[in-house]
Protein backbone atom coordinates (compact mmCIF):
# COMPACT_ATOMS: atom_id res chain seq x y z
CA UNK A 1 0.00 0.00 0.00
CA UNK A 2 1.31 3.43 -0.93
CA UNK A 3 1.22 5.89 1.93
CA UNK A 4 0.42 9.53 1.40
CA UNK A 5 3.82 10.25 2.97
CA UNK A 6 6.50 7.70 3.70
CA UNK A 7 10.02 8.38 4.88
CA UNK A 8 12.62 5.76 5.71
CA UNK A 9 15.70 6.76 7.67
CA UNK A 10 15.36 10.25 6.19
CA UNK A 11 18.43 12.24 7.19
CA UNK A 12 19.55 15.79 6.55
CA UNK A 13 22.75 17.43 7.71
CA UNK A 14 23.60 21.07 7.01
CA UNK A 15 27.35 20.64 6.70
CA UNK A 16 28.16 19.12 10.08
CA UNK A 17 25.06 20.52 11.77
CA UNK A 18 22.25 18.07 12.46
CA UNK A 19 18.96 18.63 10.72
CA UNK A 20 17.10 15.33 11.03
CA UNK A 21 18.38 11.81 11.60
CA UNK A 22 16.77 8.53 10.52
CA UNK A 23 13.23 9.91 10.43
CA UNK A 24 10.67 7.18 9.72
CA UNK A 25 7.14 8.35 9.00
CA UNK A 26 4.16 6.64 7.38
CA UNK A 27 1.14 8.89 6.93
CA UNK A 28 -1.92 7.11 5.61
CA UNK A 29 -4.13 8.62 2.94
CA UNK A 30 -7.05 10.53 4.42
CA UNK A 31 -5.67 11.04 7.90
CA UNK A 32 -4.75 14.23 9.69
CA UNK A 33 -1.29 13.57 10.98
CA UNK A 34 0.26 15.74 13.64
CA UNK A 35 3.95 16.46 13.70
CA UNK A 36 4.98 18.00 16.93
CA UNK A 37 8.19 19.11 18.52
CA UNK A 38 9.87 22.18 20.00
CA UNK A 39 11.50 24.82 17.82
CA UNK A 40 14.64 23.50 16.15
CA UNK A 41 13.57 19.86 16.52
CA UNK A 42 13.52 19.22 12.76
CA UNK A 43 9.86 19.67 11.78
CA UNK A 44 10.54 22.26 9.09
CA UNK A 45 13.60 20.37 7.84
CA UNK A 46 11.46 17.25 7.36
CA UNK A 47 8.76 19.24 5.56
CA UNK A 48 11.22 21.09 3.34
CA UNK A 49 12.84 17.81 2.37
CA UNK A 50 9.43 16.40 1.45
CA UNK A 51 8.73 19.50 -0.68
CA UNK A 52 12.09 19.33 -2.45
CA UNK A 53 13.21 22.69 -1.07
CA UNK A 54 16.26 21.02 0.44
CA UNK A 55 18.07 17.87 -0.60
CA UNK A 56 18.28 14.93 1.77
CA UNK A 57 21.63 13.63 3.00
CA UNK A 58 20.37 10.06 3.30
CA UNK A 59 17.36 7.76 3.46
CA UNK A 60 14.28 8.06 1.31
CA UNK A 61 11.11 10.14 1.14
CA UNK A 62 8.05 9.55 -1.00
CA UNK A 63 4.63 11.12 -1.42
CA UNK A 64 1.81 9.02 -2.92
CA UNK A 65 4.48 6.45 -3.80
CA UNK A 66 6.54 8.95 -5.82
CA UNK A 67 10.09 9.91 -4.95
CA UNK A 68 10.29 13.41 -3.46
CA UNK A 69 13.33 14.38 -5.51
CA UNK A 70 12.85 12.55 -8.82
CA UNK A 71 9.09 13.14 -9.10
CA UNK A 72 9.01 16.54 -7.42
CA UNK A 73 6.96 18.31 -10.09
CA UNK A 74 4.24 15.62 -10.16
CA UNK A 75 4.12 15.56 -6.38
CA UNK A 76 3.84 19.34 -6.06
CA UNK A 77 0.80 19.38 -8.34
CA UNK A 78 -0.95 17.33 -5.62
CA UNK A 79 0.35 19.26 -2.63
CA UNK A 80 -0.77 22.47 -0.95
CA UNK A 81 1.74 24.06 1.44
CA UNK A 82 1.29 26.72 4.07
CA UNK A 83 4.50 27.87 5.78
CA UNK A 84 4.66 29.34 9.29
CA UNK A 85 5.54 32.80 8.06
CA UNK A 86 4.07 34.01 4.79
CA UNK A 87 5.82 36.44 2.46
CA UNK A 88 4.75 37.41 -1.03
CA UNK A 89 5.80 39.73 -3.84
CA UNK A 90 5.80 43.46 -3.18
CA UNK A 91 3.17 45.68 -4.70
CA UNK A 92 0.67 42.96 -5.59
CA UNK A 93 -3.02 42.59 -4.84
CA UNK A 94 -4.12 39.35 -3.23
CA UNK A 95 -6.21 38.44 -6.26
CA UNK A 96 -3.24 38.88 -8.61
CA UNK A 97 -1.01 36.72 -6.45
CA UNK A 98 -3.68 34.03 -6.24
CA UNK A 99 -4.21 34.11 -10.02
CA UNK A 100 -0.46 33.72 -10.49
CA UNK A 101 -0.46 30.84 -8.01
CA UNK A 102 -3.41 29.21 -9.83
CA UNK A 103 -1.63 29.53 -13.18
CA UNK A 104 0.77 26.76 -12.12
CA UNK A 105 -2.07 24.23 -11.98
CA UNK A 106 -3.88 22.79 -14.95
CA UNK A 107 -7.33 23.67 -13.64
CA UNK A 108 -9.62 26.65 -13.25
CA UNK A 109 -9.35 27.75 -9.63
CA UNK A 110 -11.43 30.95 -9.89
CA UNK A 111 -14.53 29.67 -8.10
CA UNK A 112 -12.50 28.03 -5.38
CA UNK A 113 -10.48 31.21 -4.74
CA UNK A 114 -13.77 33.12 -4.26
CA UNK A 115 -15.19 30.39 -2.02
CA UNK A 116 -12.09 30.24 0.20
CA UNK A 117 -11.81 34.04 0.37
CA UNK A 118 -15.47 34.26 1.44
CA UNK A 119 -14.97 31.61 4.11
CA UNK A 120 -11.99 33.49 5.51
CA UNK A 121 -13.50 36.99 4.99
CA UNK A 122 -10.54 38.03 2.88
CA UNK A 123 -10.58 41.18 0.73
CA UNK A 124 -8.96 40.02 -2.50
CA UNK A 125 -8.54 43.49 -3.96
CA UNK A 126 -6.27 44.75 -1.21
CA UNK A 127 -2.52 44.95 -1.71
CA UNK A 128 -0.78 42.25 0.30
CA UNK A 129 1.81 44.62 1.78
CA UNK A 130 -1.03 46.71 3.27
CA UNK A 131 -2.55 43.68 5.02
CA UNK A 132 -2.18 42.69 8.67
CA UNK A 133 -0.17 39.55 9.45
CA UNK A 134 -3.43 37.65 9.98
CA UNK A 135 -4.80 38.64 6.57
CA UNK A 136 -1.49 37.76 4.91
CA UNK A 137 -1.85 34.36 6.53
CA UNK A 138 -5.33 34.06 5.03
CA UNK A 139 -3.84 34.74 1.59
CA UNK A 140 -1.40 31.93 2.36
CA UNK A 141 -4.23 29.58 3.29
CA UNK A 142 -6.11 30.35 0.06
CA UNK A 143 -3.00 29.92 -2.11
CA UNK A 144 -2.27 26.61 -0.38
CA UNK A 145 -5.76 25.24 -0.92
CA UNK A 146 -6.93 26.82 -4.20
CA UNK A 147 -6.12 23.76 -6.32
CA UNK A 148 -7.91 21.32 -3.99
CA UNK A 149 -4.73 19.39 -3.18
CA UNK A 150 -4.68 15.71 -2.19
CA UNK A 151 -2.06 16.44 0.46
CA UNK A 152 -2.01 19.57 2.60
CA UNK A 153 1.21 20.35 4.45
CA UNK A 154 0.87 22.91 7.22
CA UNK A 155 3.98 24.17 9.00
CA UNK A 156 3.00 26.04 12.18
CA UNK A 157 -0.07 27.36 10.40
CA UNK A 158 -1.92 29.23 13.14
CA UNK A 159 0.66 31.85 14.08
CA UNK A 160 -0.79 35.27 13.35
CA UNK A 161 -4.41 34.07 13.31
CA UNK A 162 -6.75 35.30 16.04
CA UNK A 163 -8.67 32.63 18.03
CA UNK A 164 -11.86 33.09 15.99
CA UNK A 165 -10.00 32.74 12.73
CA UNK A 166 -8.12 29.75 14.11
CA UNK A 167 -11.47 28.03 14.63
CA UNK A 168 -12.52 28.87 11.07
CA UNK A 169 -9.17 27.57 9.86
CA UNK A 170 -9.50 24.27 11.71
CA UNK A 171 -13.06 23.85 10.37
CA UNK A 172 -11.72 24.47 6.87
CA UNK A 173 -8.96 21.89 7.29
CA UNK A 174 -11.45 19.36 8.59
CA UNK A 175 -13.70 20.01 5.59
CA UNK A 176 -10.72 19.45 3.28
CA UNK A 177 -10.02 16.22 5.12
CA UNK A 178 -13.64 15.11 4.68
CA UNK A 179 -13.22 15.86 0.97
CA UNK A 180 -10.43 13.27 1.01
CA UNK A 181 -7.31 15.34 1.55
CA UNK A 182 -4.52 14.04 3.74
CA UNK A 183 -3.11 16.61 6.14
CA UNK A 184 0.36 16.85 7.68
CA UNK A 185 0.06 19.33 10.51
CA UNK A 186 3.27 20.55 12.11
CA UNK A 187 3.12 22.50 15.34
CA UNK A 188 4.83 23.10 18.64
CA UNK A 189 1.45 23.60 20.36
CA UNK A 190 0.12 20.32 21.71
CA UNK A 191 -3.49 21.49 22.08
CA UNK A 192 -3.67 22.41 18.36
CA UNK A 193 -2.54 18.97 17.35
CA UNK A 194 -4.90 17.30 19.82
CA UNK A 195 -7.74 19.34 18.36
CA UNK A 196 -7.77 17.92 14.85
CA UNK A 197 -5.21 15.15 14.39
CA UNK A 198 -5.74 11.37 14.27
CA UNK A 199 -2.15 10.43 15.04
CA UNK A 200 0.91 12.34 16.07
CA UNK A 201 4.65 11.88 15.69
CA UNK A 202 6.85 13.59 18.23
CA UNK A 203 10.24 14.81 17.06
CA UNK A 204 13.05 15.89 19.32
CA UNK A 205 16.59 16.89 18.32
CA UNK A 206 16.07 15.59 14.79
CA UNK A 207 14.76 12.16 15.74
CA UNK A 208 11.26 10.76 16.05
CA UNK A 209 10.90 9.89 19.73
CA UNK A 210 7.29 8.70 19.74
CA UNK A 211 4.38 7.99 17.44
CA UNK A 212 0.94 7.46 18.86
CA UNK A 213 -2.76 8.06 18.31
CA UNK A 214 -4.33 11.19 19.72
CA UNK A 215 -6.62 9.03 21.91
CA UNK A 216 -3.56 7.37 23.38
CA UNK A 217 -1.89 10.74 23.85
CA UNK A 218 -4.96 12.06 25.65
CA UNK A 219 -5.09 9.06 27.96
CA UNK A 220 -1.47 9.57 28.86
CA UNK A 221 -1.50 13.32 28.76
CA UNK A 222 0.02 15.30 31.57
CA UNK A 223 -1.38 18.23 33.47
CA UNK A 224 0.80 20.85 35.00
CA UNK A 225 -0.30 21.35 38.60
CA UNK A 226 0.87 23.97 41.03
CA UNK A 227 -0.59 24.96 44.39
CA UNK A 228 0.21 27.20 47.33
CA UNK A 229 -0.49 26.21 50.93
CA UNK A 230 -0.49 28.14 54.23
CA UNK A 231 2.62 26.28 55.34
CA UNK A 232 5.25 24.52 53.25
CA UNK A 233 4.49 20.88 52.54
CA UNK A 234 7.39 18.50 52.92
CA UNK A 235 5.73 15.48 51.44
CA UNK A 236 3.17 15.12 48.67
CA UNK A 237 2.65 11.67 47.25
CA UNK A 238 0.12 10.54 44.68
CA UNK A 239 0.36 7.93 41.93
CA UNK A 240 1.00 9.62 38.57
CA UNK A 241 2.95 12.57 39.95
CA UNK A 242 6.38 13.33 38.45
CA UNK A 243 8.91 16.11 38.42
CA UNK A 244 7.68 17.42 41.77
CA UNK A 245 9.31 20.58 43.03
CA UNK A 246 8.87 22.47 46.31
CA UNK A 247 9.59 26.18 46.59
CA UNK A 248 8.57 27.50 50.00
CA UNK A 249 4.81 27.40 50.20
CA UNK A 250 4.49 26.47 46.54
CA UNK A 251 4.52 22.95 45.13
CA UNK A 252 4.42 22.07 41.43
CA UNK A 253 4.49 18.83 39.42
CA UNK A 254 3.25 17.07 36.27
CA UNK A 255 0.34 14.70 36.75
CA UNK A 256 -0.95 11.88 34.61
CA UNK A 257 -3.87 9.86 35.94
CA UNK A 258 -7.39 10.10 37.32
CA UNK A 259 -8.27 13.79 37.67
CA UNK A 260 -10.73 12.98 40.51
CA UNK A 261 -7.95 11.44 42.56
CA UNK A 262 -5.90 14.59 42.08
CA UNK A 263 -8.75 16.90 43.07
CA UNK A 264 -9.54 14.81 46.17
CA UNK A 265 -5.92 14.99 47.24
CA UNK A 266 -5.78 18.74 46.69
CA UNK A 267 -9.06 19.25 48.57
CA UNK A 268 -7.52 17.68 51.65
CA UNK A 269 -4.81 20.37 51.79
CA UNK A 270 -5.01 23.87 53.33
CA UNK A 271 -4.84 25.59 49.93
CA UNK A 272 -4.39 29.31 49.27
CA UNK A 273 -4.28 28.92 45.50
CA UNK A 274 -4.18 26.14 42.90
CA UNK A 275 -3.67 25.96 39.17
CA UNK A 276 -4.13 23.04 36.77
CA UNK A 277 -2.98 23.76 33.21
CA UNK A 278 -1.54 22.23 30.11
CA UNK A 279 2.21 21.82 30.42
CA UNK A 280 4.66 23.42 28.05
CA UNK A 281 5.91 21.12 25.33
CA UNK A 282 9.41 21.22 26.78
CA UNK A 283 8.05 19.91 30.08
CA UNK A 284 6.34 17.03 28.30
CA UNK A 285 9.53 16.27 26.44
CA UNK A 286 11.43 15.85 29.70
CA UNK A 287 9.53 12.58 29.90
CA UNK A 288 11.23 11.41 26.70
CA UNK A 289 14.63 12.44 27.98
CA UNK A 290 14.06 10.60 31.22
CA UNK A 291 12.95 7.47 29.38
CA UNK A 292 15.96 7.74 27.08
CA UNK A 293 18.34 8.08 30.01
CA UNK A 294 16.66 5.16 31.80
CA UNK A 295 17.05 2.98 28.73
CA UNK A 296 20.81 3.61 28.76
Amino acid at each position, binding site marked *: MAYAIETKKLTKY*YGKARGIVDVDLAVEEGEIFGFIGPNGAGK*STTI*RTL*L*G*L*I*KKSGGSASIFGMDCEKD*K*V*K*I*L*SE*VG*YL*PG*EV*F*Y*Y*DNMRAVDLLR*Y*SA*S*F*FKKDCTARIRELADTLSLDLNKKIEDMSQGNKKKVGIV*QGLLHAPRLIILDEPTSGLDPLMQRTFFDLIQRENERGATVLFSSHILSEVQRICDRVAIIKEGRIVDLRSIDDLRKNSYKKVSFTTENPIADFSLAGVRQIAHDGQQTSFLYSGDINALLSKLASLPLIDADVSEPELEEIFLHYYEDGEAAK
Partner: protein
Amino acid sequence: MNVFRFELRRAWMGAAVWTLVLIGLLSGLITAALPAFLESRTGVENMLANFPPAFAAAFGMQMDNLFSFAGFYAFGFLYYSLFGAIMAASIGLDLFSREKRDKCMDFLLTKPRARSRVFCEKLLAALTLILASNALFIAASLALYYAYAPAPLMPERALLAASALLLTELVFLAIGACAAVFARKVRSVSGTATAIGFGGFILSALHSILEEEKLRYITPNKYFDAAKAFFDGAFEANYALTGAFLTLALIVAAYVRYTRADIPVL
Protein backbone atom coordinates in the same frame (compact mmCIF):
# COMPACT_ATOMS: atom_id res chain seq x y z
CA MET B 1 5.24 30.20 -19.70
CA ASN B 2 3.51 31.87 -16.74
CA VAL B 3 6.80 32.70 -15.01
CA PHE B 4 8.04 34.34 -18.25
CA ARG B 5 4.88 36.47 -18.53
CA PHE B 6 4.97 37.35 -14.83
CA GLU B 7 8.60 38.50 -15.02
CA LEU B 8 7.97 40.54 -18.16
CA ARG B 9 5.03 42.30 -16.53
CA ARG B 10 7.08 43.11 -13.43
CA ALA B 11 10.24 44.29 -15.21
CA TRP B 12 9.26 45.93 -18.51
CA MET B 13 8.79 49.42 -17.08
CA GLY B 14 12.34 49.63 -15.71
CA ALA B 15 13.77 48.37 -19.00
CA ALA B 16 11.66 50.89 -20.93
CA VAL B 17 12.97 53.81 -18.85
CA TRP B 18 16.58 52.67 -19.35
CA THR B 19 15.98 52.31 -23.09
CA LEU B 20 14.65 55.87 -23.26
CA VAL B 21 17.69 57.12 -21.35
CA LEU B 22 20.04 55.27 -23.72
CA ILE B 23 18.32 56.48 -26.87
CA GLY B 24 18.09 60.00 -25.42
CA LEU B 25 21.82 60.01 -24.70
CA LEU B 26 22.63 58.63 -28.15
CA SER B 27 20.39 61.14 -29.90
CA GLY B 28 21.66 64.03 -27.80
CA LEU B 29 25.28 63.23 -28.51
CA ILE B 30 24.82 62.68 -32.24
CA THR B 31 22.31 65.43 -33.01
CA ALA B 32 23.63 68.15 -30.70
CA ALA B 33 27.17 67.44 -29.53
CA LEU B 34 28.62 66.00 -32.78
CA PRO B 35 27.72 69.01 -34.99
CA ALA B 36 29.02 71.37 -32.29
CA PHE B 37 32.29 69.39 -32.10
CA LEU B 38 32.73 69.47 -35.87
CA GLU B 39 31.93 73.19 -36.14
CA SER B 40 34.43 74.23 -33.51
CA ARG B 41 37.06 71.61 -34.15
CA THR B 42 40.08 73.86 -33.52
CA GLY B 43 38.76 75.08 -30.19
CA VAL B 44 37.92 71.55 -29.06
CA GLU B 45 41.33 70.29 -30.15
CA ASN B 46 43.04 73.04 -28.14
CA MET B 47 40.91 72.24 -25.14
CA LEU B 48 41.61 68.51 -25.36
CA ALA B 49 45.32 69.16 -25.84
CA ASN B 50 45.36 70.80 -22.43
CA PHE B 51 43.80 67.72 -20.78
CA PRO B 52 46.19 65.30 -19.10
CA PRO B 53 46.57 62.40 -21.59
CA ALA B 54 45.49 59.83 -18.97
CA PHE B 55 42.32 61.82 -18.27
CA ALA B 56 41.45 62.10 -21.96
CA ALA B 57 42.10 58.36 -22.45
CA ALA B 58 40.01 57.41 -19.41
CA PHE B 59 37.00 59.30 -20.77
CA GLY B 60 37.39 58.03 -24.34
CA MET B 61 38.52 61.32 -25.93
CA GLN B 62 41.04 60.15 -28.50
CA MET B 63 41.92 63.05 -30.74
CA ASP B 64 42.82 60.96 -33.80
CA ASN B 65 39.26 59.88 -34.61
CA LEU B 66 36.97 61.98 -32.46
CA PHE B 67 35.94 64.25 -35.33
CA SER B 68 34.15 61.65 -37.41
CA PHE B 69 30.75 59.99 -36.97
CA ALA B 70 32.39 56.61 -36.24
CA GLY B 71 34.92 58.07 -33.82
CA PHE B 72 32.32 60.13 -32.03
CA TYR B 73 29.98 57.13 -31.83
CA ALA B 74 32.82 55.08 -30.32
CA PHE B 75 33.50 57.90 -27.82
CA GLY B 76 29.82 57.87 -26.85
CA PHE B 77 29.87 54.09 -26.61
CA LEU B 78 31.88 54.32 -23.38
CA TYR B 79 28.80 55.95 -21.83
CA TYR B 80 26.17 53.88 -23.65
CA SER B 81 27.93 50.78 -22.40
CA LEU B 82 28.03 52.19 -18.84
CA PHE B 83 24.27 52.79 -18.88
CA GLY B 84 23.61 49.56 -20.77
CA ALA B 85 25.73 47.64 -18.23
CA ILE B 86 23.74 49.08 -15.33
CA MET B 87 20.46 48.27 -17.10
CA ALA B 88 21.46 44.70 -17.94
CA ALA B 89 22.93 43.97 -14.50
CA SER B 90 19.79 45.45 -13.00
CA ILE B 91 17.56 43.15 -15.08
CA GLY B 92 19.64 40.09 -14.16
CA LEU B 93 19.66 40.99 -10.47
CA ASP B 94 15.98 41.91 -10.42
CA LEU B 95 14.62 38.79 -12.09
CA PHE B 96 16.87 36.28 -10.40
CA SER B 97 16.69 37.73 -6.89
CA ARG B 98 12.99 38.63 -6.90
CA GLU B 99 11.90 35.78 -4.62
CA LYS B 100 15.00 36.13 -2.45
CA ARG B 101 14.33 39.84 -1.90
CA ASP B 102 10.66 39.36 -1.22
CA LYS B 103 11.37 36.25 0.92
CA CYS B 104 8.96 34.17 -1.14
CA MET B 105 11.24 31.44 -2.52
CA ASP B 106 8.94 28.93 -0.81
CA PHE B 107 5.96 30.29 -2.74
CA LEU B 108 7.53 29.82 -6.17
CA LEU B 109 9.54 26.68 -5.55
CA THR B 110 6.70 24.67 -4.05
CA LYS B 111 4.71 25.08 -7.27
CA PRO B 112 4.65 22.19 -9.75
CA ARG B 113 7.38 23.59 -11.94
CA ALA B 114 10.94 22.27 -12.21
CA ARG B 115 13.54 24.75 -11.04
CA SER B 116 15.35 24.34 -14.36
CA ARG B 117 12.24 25.56 -16.17
CA VAL B 118 11.73 28.46 -13.77
CA PHE B 119 15.35 29.50 -14.42
CA CYS B 120 14.92 29.22 -18.20
CA GLU B 121 11.69 31.24 -18.19
CA LYS B 122 13.33 33.97 -16.10
CA LEU B 123 16.34 33.99 -18.44
CA LEU B 124 14.09 34.16 -21.46
CA ALA B 125 12.23 37.13 -19.95
CA ALA B 126 15.54 38.90 -19.28
CA LEU B 127 16.75 38.21 -22.83
CA THR B 128 13.46 39.45 -24.27
CA LEU B 129 13.78 42.74 -22.40
CA ILE B 130 17.40 43.22 -23.48
CA LEU B 131 16.73 42.25 -27.10
CA ALA B 132 13.71 44.58 -27.30
CA SER B 133 15.70 47.43 -25.79
CA ASN B 134 18.60 46.86 -28.16
CA ALA B 135 16.36 46.53 -31.20
CA LEU B 136 15.23 50.10 -30.51
CA PHE B 137 18.78 51.27 -29.77
CA ILE B 138 20.13 49.71 -32.97
CA ALA B 139 17.27 51.18 -35.00
CA ALA B 140 17.99 54.62 -33.53
CA SER B 141 21.74 54.21 -34.18
CA LEU B 142 21.14 53.28 -37.82
CA ALA B 143 18.67 56.11 -38.32
CA LEU B 144 21.19 58.60 -36.91
CA TYR B 145 23.96 57.05 -39.00
CA TYR B 146 21.97 57.57 -42.18
CA ALA B 147 21.11 61.11 -41.13
CA TYR B 148 24.50 62.33 -39.90
CA ALA B 149 27.31 60.14 -41.28
CA PRO B 150 29.03 61.38 -44.44
CA ALA B 151 29.23 59.21 -47.59
CA PRO B 152 30.39 56.59 -48.34
CA LEU B 153 28.03 54.83 -45.92
CA MET B 154 28.83 51.39 -44.54
CA PRO B 155 25.61 50.41 -42.76
CA GLU B 156 26.83 46.88 -41.98
CA ARG B 157 29.65 48.39 -39.89
CA ALA B 158 27.23 50.73 -38.16
CA LEU B 159 24.99 47.74 -37.40
CA LEU B 160 27.93 45.79 -35.96
CA ALA B 161 29.04 48.77 -33.86
CA ALA B 162 25.53 49.28 -32.50
CA SER B 163 25.21 45.58 -31.70
CA ALA B 164 28.31 45.87 -29.48
CA LEU B 165 25.97 47.29 -26.84
CA LEU B 166 23.72 44.23 -27.02
CA LEU B 167 26.69 41.87 -26.65
CA THR B 168 28.14 43.92 -23.78
CA GLU B 169 24.75 43.92 -22.06
CA LEU B 170 24.57 40.13 -22.32
CA VAL B 171 27.84 39.89 -20.37
CA PHE B 172 26.44 42.18 -17.67
CA LEU B 173 23.12 40.34 -17.61
CA ALA B 174 25.06 37.16 -16.82
CA ILE B 175 27.06 38.97 -14.12
CA GLY B 176 23.83 40.31 -12.57
CA ALA B 177 22.09 36.93 -12.71
CA CYS B 178 25.06 35.17 -11.17
CA ALA B 179 25.38 37.76 -8.40
CA ALA B 180 21.64 37.42 -7.66
CA VAL B 181 21.78 33.64 -7.44
CA PHE B 182 24.96 33.37 -5.38
CA ALA B 183 24.38 36.29 -2.98
CA ARG B 184 22.80 35.40 0.36
CA LYS B 185 20.87 38.66 0.28
CA VAL B 186 20.28 41.31 -2.38
CA ARG B 187 19.38 44.48 -0.49
CA SER B 188 19.16 46.92 -3.40
CA VAL B 189 18.95 45.99 -7.07
CA SER B 190 19.67 49.52 -8.29
CA GLY B 191 22.61 50.02 -5.90
CA THR B 192 24.23 46.69 -6.75
CA ALA B 193 23.64 47.14 -10.50
CA THR B 194 25.16 50.63 -10.39
CA ALA B 195 28.19 49.26 -8.53
CA ILE B 196 28.60 46.52 -11.15
CA GLY B 197 28.19 49.00 -14.04
CA PHE B 198 30.68 51.49 -12.59
CA GLY B 199 33.05 48.63 -11.79
CA GLY B 200 33.10 47.83 -15.51
CA PHE B 201 33.52 51.53 -16.35
CA ILE B 202 36.48 51.90 -13.98
CA LEU B 203 38.16 48.80 -15.42
CA SER B 204 37.62 50.26 -18.87
CA ALA B 205 39.15 53.59 -17.84
CA LEU B 206 42.09 51.81 -16.18
CA HIS B 207 42.70 49.85 -19.35
CA SER B 208 42.67 53.06 -21.42
CA ILE B 209 45.11 54.76 -19.04
CA LEU B 210 47.50 51.87 -18.50
CA GLU B 211 47.17 50.40 -22.00
CA GLU B 212 47.82 47.01 -20.44
CA GLU B 213 46.33 44.44 -22.82
CA LYS B 214 45.99 41.72 -20.18
CA LEU B 215 43.67 44.03 -18.25
CA ARG B 216 41.29 44.00 -21.18
CA TYR B 217 40.52 40.32 -20.58
CA ILE B 218 38.79 41.31 -17.32
CA THR B 219 37.13 44.45 -18.75
CA PRO B 220 33.62 43.47 -19.89
CA ASN B 221 32.92 46.90 -21.46
CA LYS B 222 35.77 46.32 -23.91
CA TYR B 223 35.13 42.77 -25.09
CA PHE B 224 33.02 44.14 -27.94
CA ASP B 225 34.65 47.36 -29.10
CA ALA B 226 32.39 49.65 -31.16
CA ALA B 227 35.40 51.54 -32.56
CA LYS B 228 36.94 48.34 -33.93
CA ALA B 229 33.58 47.37 -35.42
CA PHE B 230 33.29 50.73 -37.16
CA PHE B 231 36.89 51.03 -38.37
CA ASP B 232 37.83 47.36 -39.00
CA GLY B 233 34.40 45.84 -39.65
CA ALA B 234 34.87 43.18 -36.94
CA PHE B 235 35.36 42.70 -33.21
CA GLU B 236 38.72 41.41 -32.00
CA ALA B 237 38.21 37.65 -31.87
CA ASN B 238 40.20 36.94 -28.69
CA TYR B 239 38.28 39.48 -26.61
CA ALA B 240 34.91 38.67 -28.20
CA LEU B 241 35.48 34.98 -27.44
CA THR B 242 36.47 35.84 -23.87
CA GLY B 243 33.21 37.76 -23.52
CA ALA B 244 31.16 34.93 -24.99
CA PHE B 245 32.87 32.33 -22.79
CA LEU B 246 32.47 34.44 -19.65
CA THR B 247 28.77 35.00 -20.38
CA LEU B 248 28.16 31.32 -20.93
CA ALA B 249 30.18 30.27 -17.88
CA LEU B 250 28.33 32.71 -15.61
CA ILE B 251 24.92 31.58 -16.89
CA VAL B 252 25.83 27.91 -16.42
CA ALA B 253 27.11 28.61 -12.89
CA ALA B 254 23.91 30.50 -12.06
CA TYR B 255 21.79 27.67 -13.51
CA VAL B 256 23.59 24.98 -11.50
CA ARG B 257 23.30 26.99 -8.30
CA TYR B 258 19.64 27.91 -8.87
CA THR B 259 18.56 24.36 -9.64
CA ARG B 260 20.51 22.62 -6.86
CA ALA B 261 20.80 24.94 -3.88
CA ASP B 262 18.95 24.22 -0.64
CA ILE B 263 16.35 26.84 0.17
CA PRO B 264 16.87 27.74 3.83
CA VAL B 265 14.09 28.58 6.26
CA LEU B 266 13.62 32.36 6.45
